[in-house]
């Protein structure tokens, strides 16, 4: 059974890697075939939530991922509306995960894609991600939990996927409502139909296999299980091969697409993402998948990420390519990590006292 799950995860990971290479070849920014944080940020910008002109575009990949998960969830009876597990804390943690990702310039999925493109800054970030997950596992082993999710109405469960459908209809029917970057990463995108199809395929595959960039490393720490990590490895392997074939592999720290070589901040950015993802029960990709399956808690985490993206750009907290974070971003990230650790400590102590 475990072998079968590993094979399915490897296929799903391979599909994501392949989709990333194809989307990049058809117009997405370098090493950004998929990036949940960047694409939520671009979508937030397109909806006038932030004013960074170079990162504004409604990314159909995000809509596809949610709807792919929703559709397969309904077909396979995994669609189960549920919620009420610390929604405000999830919003805050989602916000911080986005801040960490935008200091590094990528979510865990893009970290793997950057690594497969030869960007060694992503290796530094991977160490930070692993460290964050390790610290999160210490809290989990000592009682940390955001609480049990309860059953909710199907209306509540359908609300988030329905919002993504509404966004897509408006994007297609009334594009003048949205902002479109004319330069920078937001101006670089694959054709809408291809991006939507790739998102649908990735959403369905990730729903079926439970693929999670943080979960694989968490399971190694907690239960010495290597099943989930096989998806992570497959994404890396397929993207690496794709980049070698297309001539997109460039080993080094500098001159990498949408990247900066500030090691400490790459490490700390992904430390926050790793810790926050463990607290949320999954990486940003997994939050989209769970929101598609009817989890209003994960939808809250996604809303937190969207708000985090808007704040990160409106208050100059996000890094810029090559230069890294400014003073605002550095102060905000350190404060955010302190807040994450405080939440984890308080929740853990409270659970231990109750238990």
């Amino acid at each position, binding site marked *: 059974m475990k072998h079968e799950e590993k094979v399915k995860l490897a296929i799903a990971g391979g599909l994501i890697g392949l989709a990333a290479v194809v989307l990049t070849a058809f117009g997405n920014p370098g090493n950004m075939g998929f990036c949940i944080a960047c694409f939520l940020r671009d979508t937030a910008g397109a909806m006038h939530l932030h004013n960074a002109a170079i990162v504004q575009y409604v990314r159909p990949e995000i809509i596809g991922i949610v709807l792919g998960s929703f559709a397969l969830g309904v077909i396979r009876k995994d669609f189960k509306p549920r919620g009420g597990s610390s929604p405000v804390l999830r919003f805050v943690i989602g916000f911080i995960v986005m801040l960490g990702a935008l200091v590094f310039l990528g979510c865990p999925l893009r970290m793997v894609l950057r690594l497969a493109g030869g960007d060694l800054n992503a290796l530094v970030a991977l160490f930070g991600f692993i460290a964050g997950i390790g610290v999160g596992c210490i809290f*989990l*082993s000592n009682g940390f*939990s955001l609480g049990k999710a309860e059953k909710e109405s199907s209306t509540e469960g359908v609300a988030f996927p329905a919002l993504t459908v509404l966004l897509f209809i408006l994007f297609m029917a009334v594009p003048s409502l949205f902002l479109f970057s004319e330069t920078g990463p937001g101006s670089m995108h694959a054709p809408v139909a291809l991006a939507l199809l790739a998102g649908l395929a990735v959403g369905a595959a990730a729903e079926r296999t*439970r693929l*999670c960039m943080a979960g694989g490393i968490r399971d190694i720490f907690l239960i010495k299980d290597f099943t989930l990590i096989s998806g992570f490895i497959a994404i890396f392997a397929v993207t690496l091969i794709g980049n070698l074939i297309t001539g997109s592999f460039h080993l080094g720290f500098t001159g990498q697409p949408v990247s900066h070589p500030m090691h400490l901040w790459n490490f700390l950015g992904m430390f926050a993402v790793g810790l926050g993802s463990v607290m949320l029960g999954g990486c940003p990709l*997994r939050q989209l998948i769970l929101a598609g399956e009817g989890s209003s808690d994960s939808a809250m985490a996604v809303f937190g990420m969207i708000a985090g993206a808007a704040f990160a750009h409106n208050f100059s907290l996000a890094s810029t390519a090559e230069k890294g974070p400014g003073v605002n971003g550095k102060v905000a990230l350190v404060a955010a990590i302190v807040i994450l650790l405080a939440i984890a400590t308080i929740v853990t102590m409270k*659970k231990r006292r109750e238990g």
Partner: protein
Amino acid sequence: MASDDIKVATFVSHYGAMMFRKRVGNGAELKPVPRSLSSSCGTAVFFSSPFSEDFADENTEAVYEKDGDEWRLVWKR
């Protein structure tokens, strides 16, 4: 161990799984929740000793027993 002796318990939290395993004792193992039982990626406890409600606490969600290729629900909170 005959396959029909295998049971699996699911939980609200990883800590709940750790405590359950401690109460079951020898032979209980922490593993990922089987995909056929849940689309969540939490921790489950696999064990073969007879299930007692004393093993469960407020963090325990359900206990299933292997029945051929299926999991049969034997206890739910």
